[in-house]
C-alpha cells in the first residue's frame, strides 16, 4: 500500500491516464450500480448517491433505522470497486488508537513501530458512529479531511481512494454522542435508505432464498479504473452561470429565517463536485442547473441547523423542515439563462 499506488492516482488529472470517454464512464458506473442494486432492492437513489460520493471523493453519512441495508450498501460498494474495506463498529469504549493505529515498541528492533488502525483501507465503514465518544469520533473525522493519520508526530498518508461511509441510527439516541454540526459538514452527503416498498421487499425475499447475494458479488472495476472515473468526473465543465447558481443557493441558506446555521463554503465545493459526477453519470460533459438542484437536499441538508422553532415544528428534529426549506430555496432561486453579448 504504498507510494506507487499513491502517485498513480492521487495527484490530479494530469497524473492519471487519459480520462475515459463518457460512454465508457457510463458503462463502468452502470456496472457498479447494477451490483449495488443486486444487493439492495429498489433503492436506486441511495445507490446512485453513494456512487456519486465515491466518484466525487467525498464521504457518506447514512442515517436510518436499523435493518434497512446501510451496511449492506457500504459493503457492496466496496466489493464492487475491488478496494480494501474495513469496518469499525463504534462503541462507547472504542479508543482513537483503534481507529488510527498505534505505535508499539518493537523489542527486536528497539524502535517504535506503527501498527495501522482500521482506517487504513480504501473504504471504511464506520457503523453507528454516534455511539463512540467524541474523542474517537474526531480521530476519524481528522482522517477524513486530511486523508492522513498523525500518530506520535509521524504522518501516515492514507491511500486513495479513501471514502468513509458512516452510519447513524437516528431513533435510538440513548447513550450516544450525536455528531456535532461542524463535523457533519465533513460528509459530502447524507442519505437515508428508507423502507423498501412492498414489491421491492418481496423481490428481496425471493433473492435471498438462495443465500445472500453478497456472496456472488464480484468487483466490476479495479482501483485504477476507479481513479480514471474520478478523473473523468473532475474534468466535467462547470460554466460561470452554473457556479453563480450554486453560490446563490448556498448563500440563500445563510440568510434563511428558518436556519440558525447555513451551508459552509465546503458545502459549495461538495455541491459542485457532486454535480459534476451527476452530469457525467448522465452522459453530459457539462453541468446544468438540474444537476445542481437535485443534489441540494442530500448535499446540503445535514450541514444546516434549523432554528429551534422550525426544528420543533416537524418530526425528525427538523430534518423535514430543513429539506422543505431547501426545496423552497431551489424553487425561488432563478435558474440562469443569460443572453450573453457576442463579445463575451
Amino acid at each position, binding site marked *: 500500500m504504498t507510494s506507487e499506488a499513491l502517485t498513480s492516482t492521487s495527484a490530479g488529472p494530469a497524473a492519471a491516464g487519459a480520462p475515459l470517454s463518457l460512454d465508457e*464512464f*457510463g458503462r463502468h*458506473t452502470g456496472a457498479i*450500480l447494477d451490483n449495488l442494486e443486486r444487493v439492495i432492492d429498489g433503492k*436506486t*437513489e441511495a445507490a*446512485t*448517491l453513494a456512487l*456519486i460520493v465515491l466518484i466525487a471523493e467525498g464521504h457518506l453519512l447514512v442515517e436510518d433505522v436499523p435493518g434497512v441495508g446501510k451496511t449492506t450498501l457500504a459493503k457492496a460498494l466496496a466489493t464492487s470497486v475491488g478496494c480494501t474495506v474495513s469496518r469499525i463498529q463504534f462503541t462507547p469504549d472504542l479508543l482513537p488508537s483503534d481507529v488510527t493505529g498505534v505505535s508499539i515498541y518493537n523489542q527486536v528492533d528497539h524502535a517504535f513501530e506503527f501498527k495501522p488502525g482500521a482506517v487504513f483501507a480504501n473504504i471504511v465503514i464506520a457503523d453507528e458512529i454516534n455511539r463512540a465518544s467524541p474523542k474517537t469520533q474526531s480521530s476519524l473525522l481528522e482522517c477524513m479531511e486530511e486523508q492522513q493519520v498523525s500518530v506520535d508526530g509521524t504522518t501516515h498518508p492514507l491511500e486513495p481512494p479513501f471514502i468513509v461511509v458512516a452510519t447513524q441510527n437516528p431513533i435510538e439516541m440513548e447513550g450516544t454522542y450525536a455528531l456535532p454540526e461542524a463535523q457533519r459538514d465533513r460528509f459530502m452527503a447524507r442519505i437515508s435508505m428508507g423502507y423498501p416498498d412492498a414489491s421491492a421487499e418481496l423481490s428481496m425475499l425471493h433473492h435471498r432464498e438462495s443465500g445472500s447475494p453478497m456472496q456472488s458479488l464480484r468487483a466490476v472495476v479495479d482501483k485504477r479504473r476507479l481513479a480514471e472515473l474520478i478523473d473523468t468526473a473532475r474534468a466535467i*465543465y462547470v*460554466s*460561470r*452561470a*452554473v*457556479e*453563480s*447558481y450554486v*453560490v*446563490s443557493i*448556498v448563500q*440563500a441558506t445563510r*440568510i*434563511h429565517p*428558518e436556519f440558525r446555521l447555513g451551508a459552509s*463554503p465546503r458545502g*459549495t465545493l461538495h455541491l459542485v463536485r457532486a454535480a459534476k459526477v451527476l452530469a*457525467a*453519470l*448522465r*452522459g*453530459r*460533459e*457539462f*453541468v*446544468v*442547473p*438540474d444537476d445542481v*438542484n437535485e443534489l441540494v437536499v*442530500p448535499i446540503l441538508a445535514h450541514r444546516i441547523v434549523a432554528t429551534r422553532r*422550525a426544528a420543533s*415544528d*416537524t418530526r425528525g428534529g427538523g430534518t*423535514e*423542515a430543513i*429539506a*422543505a426549506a431547501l*426545496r*423552497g*430555496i*431551489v*424553487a*425561488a*432561486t*432563478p435558474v*440562469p*439563462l*443569460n*443572453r*450573453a453579448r*457576442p463579445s463575451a
Partner: protein
Amino acid sequence: MSTLLRPPAAPVPSGGTPRDRARPDEAVDGGRGGRPTSERGRASAARRRERRGTWKTTLAVGLTMGFALFSLSPLLQGIGWWFATMAMVGVLLGVSALLRARGVPEVVVVGAAVLLWVAIVVVLYAPGTTWFVLPTLDTVADLSADLAAARESIAVQEVPAVAVPELTQLLVMSIGLIALVSDELAAGLRVPALSGTGPLAVLTIAPLVRRDEPQVLVYLLTGLAFLLVLWTGARIGDGRSGSGRIGAGAVGAGPHSVSGSRGGPTPSIRPAAGGRNPLLALGLAVAAVAAMVVLPTVTPGLTAADLTEQGDGTPFASTYATGVDPTIQLGRDLRRSDPVLSLTYSTSAEEGLYLKMVNLSDFSGGTWEPEAPYDGVEYQGQQFGTPPGLAADVPVTDVTTTVSIAGLRSDWLPLPYPSQRVDSLSGNWLITPNTFTITDLQGDTRGINYEATSLAVAPTAEQLAAAGATVPDDLAGYLQLPADLPPVIAQEASTVTAGAATNYDRAVALQEFFRSGQFRYSLAAPASNGYDGSNAEMIAAFLEKKEGYCVHFSAAMAVMARTLGIPSRVAVGYAPGQTADSTADGRPVYEVYTDQLHAWPELYFEGIGWLPFEPTPGLDITPPDYSLPDYAQQSTTDSAAPAPSSTSTATNSAGPERGDVGATQSAEQQVLAQVRGWSIFAGVLVAVGLIVLAPYAARRLVRRGRIRRLATDPQPGTLAWLELEDTLDDHRLQRSHGDTLADVEQRLTAENMVPVDALVRLRLAAEYEQYAPPGTAGDETRARIARDLVAVISGLDAQAQPRDRALARYLPVSLWRRRRAAASTGALVP
C-alpha cells in the same frame, strides 16, 4: 427526493416520477411558527394560501376607483374632495386587504368593512348622535339631512360646482360603498370582470352631466387600472397546492419562500378551469367606454334626468336626477351639432304652439330653480281646473293637440299652456297645480303619445290694460328676489319702463327692450365669457354684454318683471317647431327638434293669468300679438290670434345664427350631421379596437423578429427558448423562477401538449449554449431550431382551450413581464 437521479447515459429525462417532496403547506405553517392545532387555524391557513395576492387586486381596485373618480374633476372645483374620498376608499380597502391576508373568513371581511364604513361615516358626519356607540334615529336623520343638502347644492350650483362639505360627504359615502362592492367582487368573490361596474358607474356621471369633450386620458387610465384588476384577479391564489396550475408558481415569492413548484403534487400544465373570463370583461369594458363616449352625441335629452337611468350602481344616483341647472343643460342641447327629432304634434290651433315642460319659479336663492314637482297631485285623467288668474269673461277657445314623442328623454311632458286635460296617458303621473305641468320623475318619455286639450286665451286690449293691477297674496312667491340681487337689474328695469302706465304696458316695454336690436342672439358668447346660466350675477353680466340666448333673455326679463312688481316665472319647453310635409287628420304635423328647446318668461296678470312673452330676438318667432305695443290699438273684437304664434316654415332660414326655433337645417346638413355622428362612433370603435389589438400586434412583431434573428444570433438556442418561455407566459402556464429548462420540458411533455422531439432538441440547444464549455456546440442547426420552435408554439396553441388561446393572443403578458431573472454573479466562494 426520489427523482431524476437515474442510471447513467440518459441525456434526455424520461420524465415521469412526481417528486416526492414535502407538501408546501407544512412548511408554510412551520414558517409562521404556530402549528395550526385547531380546525379553525387550519381553515384560516388554507384561506391565507388561497388568497395569496388578493391585496394586489384590492390595490388595483383602489387605483381604478381613483382614476374613475378623477373623471368628476370637470364637475367639481378644487381637488380636496378627491383626496377625502380616496382616503375613505384607502382605509376601507386597506382594512379589507389586511383581514384577507390574515385569513379571516370572507363574511367577516365584508362585515368588518361595512361596519368600518358606518363607523367612519358616523364619526365624521354625525358625531354626537349616537347612543354609546350605536347609531340612532338621530344619526340617520342627521345623515339624510346632509344628503338632502348635498342634493340641493347640486341643484343650485352650476358646474364646476364648489365642493361644499355636503357634496364631499356624499362622494365619500357613495364612492366608499362602491369601492367596497367592487373590491368584494374582485378580491372576495373572484369575479373581477364584474367589479368594473362600480368604476364604470362613476365614469358615466361626468359625460352625462356635462357634455363636452370626453376625458380620453382618464378613461384610458381607468381602463388600464381595470385591466390590472383583471390581471391580478386572475392570479389570486398562485402557489396554493393542487391548484392545477403548472408549478404553482412562486412568482413574487422571496428567496425564503417555501412554497414552490417543487412542492406541489403532480404538476399539471392546464390552467385551472375557473369561472373567470377576462376577455368577456374586456369586451364589456370596451363596449361601455365606446357607449359612454358616443351616447351623449346621439341621443337627445333634456337635463340630467338621464342620470336616473345611467347612473345605476350608485346608490345616490337619484340625487343627481333633478340636479344641475336645467337652463345650463338647455344651452348645451342648443349647441348640439346634430339636432335630433324630439317630438311631433298636430294641433287644431291655427299656428304652432309652445309646449311647456317645466317652470322655473323659485328665484329666492339667486338661481332659477324648478318648482318642486314633489307636491304634485296624482293625475288620473281629471280636469286640470281653471287656470290661475283667468277671469270668466276672457274669451277662450278649446284647442286639441296630439303629441307623439320621438327621442326626448325627460321627466316632464311637453304640454301647451293652459292645458285642461291629457288623454291616452298611461303610467303614474303627477300634476303640479300651479304650473299645469306633468311629470313622472322617471326621466324617460320616449315613444309615448297623448292628446292634450288646452285653452287658447285671447284677452282684449281693455282686459289687458285693466289686468294685473293687484297681486294676490298666494302669488307672493313669484315676486321673491334674493337680497343680494345686483342693483343694476332693477335700475335697468325702471329705466326701460319709465314711460309705462300699467303693469301690462311695462311688460310690453320690457319685451320691446330686448327685441329692439341692441341685444344680439348668440349661443356661444355666454359660455365663452363665463356667464352661462341664469343666476343673478349672470343676468347682470348679460345685461352688460347684451349677448345671449333664450335662457338669458327669459331669465333677465322675468327677474326684471319681478323688480317691477309683476309676478313672473321662466318656462322651459319647446318652441313651436316647423310644419312637416305630412298631415294627420287633415291637420299639419309639426316637427320639433332638440335645438328647439326654448325658454321664455311667463308673466302674471290678475284677471287673465299667466301670459307667455317672447323677449328672445334673432329667432324666427313672432311674439304673441298681445305682447306687441300696437295690440292695444287693435279692434277689441279681434279674436283671432291664439296666444303664441309662430311663423316657422320648413326648410329655410339657414341664417348665420342657429336658432332655438325655426333655425332648421337643410336636409344635407342633417345628413352631414348624421354622418359626422356615425363617423365619430366608428372612429371611437376603431380607436378602441386598435388599443385592444395593440398588444397582440406587438407580441406578433416580437416573435417574428426573434425567429428572424435565429438565423444570425450567436445564441439561437437561448433565443428560441426565451421565446418559448414567453409563449408559456402568454398561455398563463405558470412557472417559477427556479424551474430549470428540463423542468419546463418535463411538464410540457407530461401533458402531451407539444411535439416532444422538437421540444427536447430546443432544450438541448439552449443548454449547450448556456452551460457547455465554450467552443463546443450541440448538433442543432439554426434552421432546425426555428422549425422546432414554430412546431412547439403551434402545438401549444392547438392544445389550448379556445378561451385560453384568445387570452394568450390578445393579452400577452410576456410583453410587460420578465419572468426569468439572471442569477447574481458572485464569485465562487473558495
